[in-house]
């Protein structure tokens, strides 16, 4: 504000006098409050998770909670061991990542580097449409179309398995992987590619040795966002993962990932009771897991940005 008050040697002075700009100030405040609100909501969620979930982790020591295989919430006394849920989450998220990453990154390379602009625009909007499918619809598709196929292929009693859930989740995490990786590839300055072509590189060499390495941190961030989507998705896994409580030893076992455990258990849990609190504790652990993955992704994107900032 000093600028408005200091009168330069040439000015007559009066017209440069500071004048309160009320509209400006109000907008500033409103925007500020919006920012604060986002933080309040985040902290509020964390607070509720901690308040409801921590008692369960005190009741059942955290290592027993994490590594115990027995989940008997209504026995007397109840036992809460979530390792089979945890392993199920790893299976499902792992399968999803394994399938979605090569396809997603390959598609991003195609869209950013190979496809003619018109084709790229159409394909990209189709891929993004995929992310708009409600997860219950994806679950339904998995139930009706994919699970019979899985059952026959592996000769199982039920087609509702971790693999089925993983395949459906891979389709759901594909859009974010494709679009974030594509953005990262498009952000690679054209000058790098020109330089590589100028040195006598083929198109493939330019893609593989310049574009992809330059975009690598963005691509890894995309992968991690896909992973956190796969970890957090609930409805689809609830519908197609099979819901068995036993420790899954093979990807084609029916299983209950952590999200599905919460969703299927919360309806029967007495509010404030031990099971209720244990489910919140699972939620807390999920929150920490996805927070961790997202933090890494954010950090990696930051590195990407800095890489291209000159000086």
């Amino acid at each position, binding site marked *: 504000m000093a600028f408005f008050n200091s009168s330069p040697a040439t000015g007559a002075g009066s017209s440069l006098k500071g004048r309160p700009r009320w509209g400006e100030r109000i907008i500033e405040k409103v925007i500020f409050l919006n920012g604060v609100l986002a933080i309040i909501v985040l902290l509020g969620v964390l607070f509720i998770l901690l308040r409801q979930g921590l008692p369960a982790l005190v009741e059942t020591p955290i290592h027993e909670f994490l590594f115990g295989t027995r989940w008997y919430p209504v026995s007397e006394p109840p036992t809460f061991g979530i390792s089979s849920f945890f392993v199920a989450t790893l299976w499902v998220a792992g399968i999803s990542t394994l399938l979605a990453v090569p396809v997603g990154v390959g598609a991003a390379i195609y869209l950013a580097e190979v496809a003619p602009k018109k084709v790229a625009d159409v394909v990209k909007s189709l891929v993004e449409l995929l992310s708009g499918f409600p997860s219950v619809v994806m679950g339904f598709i998995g139930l009706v179309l994919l699970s019979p196929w899985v059952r026959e292929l592996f000769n199982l009693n039920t087609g509702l398995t971790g693999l089925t859930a993983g395949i459906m989740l891979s389709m759901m995490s594909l859009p974010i992987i494709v679009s974030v990786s594509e953005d990262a590839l498009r952000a690679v*300055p054209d*000058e*790098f590619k*020109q*330089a*590589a*072509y*100028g*040195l*006598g*590189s*083929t198109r493939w*060499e330019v893609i593989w*040795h*310049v574009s992809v*390495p*330059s975009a690598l941190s963005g691509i890894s961030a995309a992968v991690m966002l896909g992973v956190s989507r796969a970890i957090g998705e609930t409805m689809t896994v609830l519908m197609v993962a099979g819901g068995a409580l036993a420790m899954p030893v093979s990807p084609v076992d029916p299983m209950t990932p952590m999200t599905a455990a919460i969703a299927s258990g919360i309806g029967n849990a007495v509010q404030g009771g031990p099971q209720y609190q244990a489910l919140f504790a699972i939620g807390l652990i999920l929150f920490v897991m996805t927070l961790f993955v997202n933090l890494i992704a954010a950090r990696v994107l930051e590195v990407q940005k800095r*890489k*291209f900032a*000159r*000086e």
Partner: protein
Amino acid sequence: MNMNSIFKSSTDDNSRQADSGNASSKLRMQHMNLYYGSFHAVKDITLQVNTSSITAIIGPSGCGKSSMLRVFNRMNDLIPGASVDGLVEFDGINIYEPGVDVVELRKRIGMVFQKPNPFPMSIYDNVAFGPRRHGIRNRRALDEIVEKSLMQAALWDEVKDKLGQSGLSISGGQQQRLCIARVLAVEPEVILMDEPCSALDPIATLKIEDLMRTLSETYTIVIVTHNMQQAARVSDMTAFLMVDDGHSGVLVEYGPTSEVFTNPRDKRTEDYITGRFG
């Protein structure tokens, strides 16, 4: 390495030794026209560039200097809709003939760009990029190439202790010399420079100009420049381009630099170099 023919399949080579020494033409354009879609960007250019010389292309902004330069290593191929007709020869071979291997061509005709554009990797990896793409994997051989190229680019002493650092961490002038070293590592015969000093300060510019003079003993250099003093300082031959009424670039005058600058044949050249327009 650069003894291969630019033809994809043939084996006869047009080696450098055969041409060096005599002032034969390295590059030649005859009635060359460049189009971007329906836009006639550069019209009817005829000139020849001698071996081991520096040829400057000057002219006002938008006259097609850079476009013309990129005809020599077919960089315009990367622009959709660009097409060239007429004759463009490198070592007597029409480079727009079907069957010419563009990758091999660009290996032998290197390019330095307007803005220093080192890859976001270490200084060492920047220089080793070209040789690696062309199949050199041996660490010692790469070490030698990197050292030799950086020496040639007059950058070795400044970076020899930090070869592992990012190519983007050094100053703009150093980055541009790194880009030159990166081109030299591929052992080209011709180096095209597209306003290589326009993003640099005067001292860095002088360093690059010195470097160009040294390199011209071994390499054929074609440089596009906005800076007429630079053309006058470094080049042996000067081509002056201008736009005609249809906004196409045309070659107004081409000759030895001393003549173009002291005794231009064309009134328009005189007006330009004396600063009456442009």
